[in-house]
């Protein structure tokens, strides 16, 4: 497998009052083509900032990001993004949301239709082409979000807590659907979450982050074959291991600053 995304010593600082707030510090990571990578961390650990920089929506203070050996310097069609707030264009129907990127690429309406038909069916929204977002449930909205990102045919799909706004039932359903879509499209997925269960269910690898400043604490390979059974012993053990890792992180927040210095 080839490396599709490489991040080298990435740091992001925000000006805060007179001082500078370090959001993420010295992150280096390589992602394989076709990999399902989950980034897991407590809130405020900078995982969304990291994803926004990969997407090109935010600029790093220092460090380099390369997609297919090409430096990232802004948003690009090689990376698609799915948002927690769905971010659908409310005045557009499902079809026209999915075709947004295709319109910008000046495809003919026939080509657009062929591609949008394919992805709308892939995410299971056939029959809802002409519905407006307000007519859809949360889970259906996010299906549109996924179809819209995929229609642009990106190499990497970036997902920022995409199921965070959904209820538990829908969330589990969407996780299954996402794995099915991932297996059909063979996309690389970078998935942000703060749910240990979600990360364990989905990921090939889990990156656990620390908070303030956000750094990589540990990376876990998940050897369990899919479909994963949440009730199985190995799943429970894995979840316990990662939860402990994460909890150590969360409960040690007041002393993180010194903790990080020790580690460095």
């Amino acid at each position: 497998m080839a490396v599709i995304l490489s991040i080298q010593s990435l740091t992001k600082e925000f000006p805060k009052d007179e001082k500078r707030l370090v959001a993420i510090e010295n992150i280096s990571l390589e992602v394989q083509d076709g990999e399902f990578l989950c980034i897991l961390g407590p809130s405020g650990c900078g995982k969304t900032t990291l994803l926004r920089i990969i997407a090109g929506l935010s600029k790093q203070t220092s460090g380099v990001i390369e997609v297919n050996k090409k430096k990232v310097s802004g948003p690009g069609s090689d990376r698609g993004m799915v948002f927690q707030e769905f971010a659908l264009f409310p005045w557009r129907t499902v079809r026209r949301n999915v075709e947004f990127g295709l319109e910008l690429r000046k495809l003919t309406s026939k080509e657009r239709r062929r591609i949008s038909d394919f992805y709308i069916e892939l995410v299971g929204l056939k029959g809802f082409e002409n519905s407006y977002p307000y007519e859809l449930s949360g889970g259906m909205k996010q299906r549109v979000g996924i179809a819209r990102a995929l229609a642009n045919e990106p190499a990497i799909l970036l997902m920022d807590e995409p199921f965070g706004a959904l209820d538990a039932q829908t969330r589990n359903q969407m996780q299954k659907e996402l794995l099915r879509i991932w297996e059909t499209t063979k996309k690389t997925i970078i998935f942000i979450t703060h749910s240990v269960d979600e990360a364990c269910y989905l990921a090939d690898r889990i990156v656990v982050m620390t908070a303030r400043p956000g750094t990589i604490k540990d990376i876990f390979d998940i050897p369990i074959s899919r479909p994963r059974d949440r009730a199985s012993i190995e799943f429970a053990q894995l979840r316990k291991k990662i939860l402990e890792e994460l909890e150590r992180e969360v409960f040690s927040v007041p002393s993180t600053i010194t903790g990080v210095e020790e580690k460095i």
Partner: protein
Amino acid sequence: MANGIKTWFKSVIRILDKKRVVRFSISILSLIAFVIIWQIAADISDTEYLPTPGEVLDAFFDSFVTKDPASQVTMWQNIEMSLDRFIIGFLLAMILAVPMGLLIGYFWVPGAFAKPLIEIFRPIPPIAWVPIFLVIFKDVWGPIIVILIGAFFPVLSNVVFGVKSVEPHLIDAAKTLGAGRATLFTKVIFPYTIPYLMAGVTIGLGIAWMCIVAAEMIGARGGGVGLYIYNQAAIGRFDYMFAGIVVIALLGLITVGLASFVEKRLSKWKEVR
């Protein structure tokens, strides 16, 4: 076909809905009560200043077929002249206010530049400009410019507000899908502001309508419903004067109705949110 019958059936049921019927009857009742009180007041006062509803209705129909002695035109021509001023003034207001609103709302330099000017000029009642505009722009363009000013500010402020309320994640989504600055404007920011724009248009229409009557009374020539009302009062034809007021009321209802119809169609996606 079966579907058509089904929706027709549904709409009949909806019309038969008890609460709707009651509400509609009460509305009709209020109109009837108004006419009765008017009739009684006219009978009791027995002055030429307050004609009866019947007299006004007669004058209303007559004004469309006979020329009025003051300006030698029929009501049709008065309406046409008023509408001409109204449409030109309103269109000019839109042409200026929409791009300016987008600019002021999105870019901070034009925004900071325009803000004090807007704050100073917006609270001035447009009618205050009538005397000076009649001197500068004469009787043809004077009333038009007054309408322009009246409609300009509500449309402008609403567009600015619309641009400022565009949700940031929509901008992010468009960027990740390949939108540059120009397409961001045409495909995200502008469509997002349309419901705000239409709300501004509805307010602007009401204000413009007040402006035209006032402006015509003070200084239009040749005709116009405002001028007509003024002239009829001056020559003592009060039944015809009230007929002019009825015309203004009807035209106002039609324009605002039209605007809210368009608003509903264009803002369909926003209704249920």
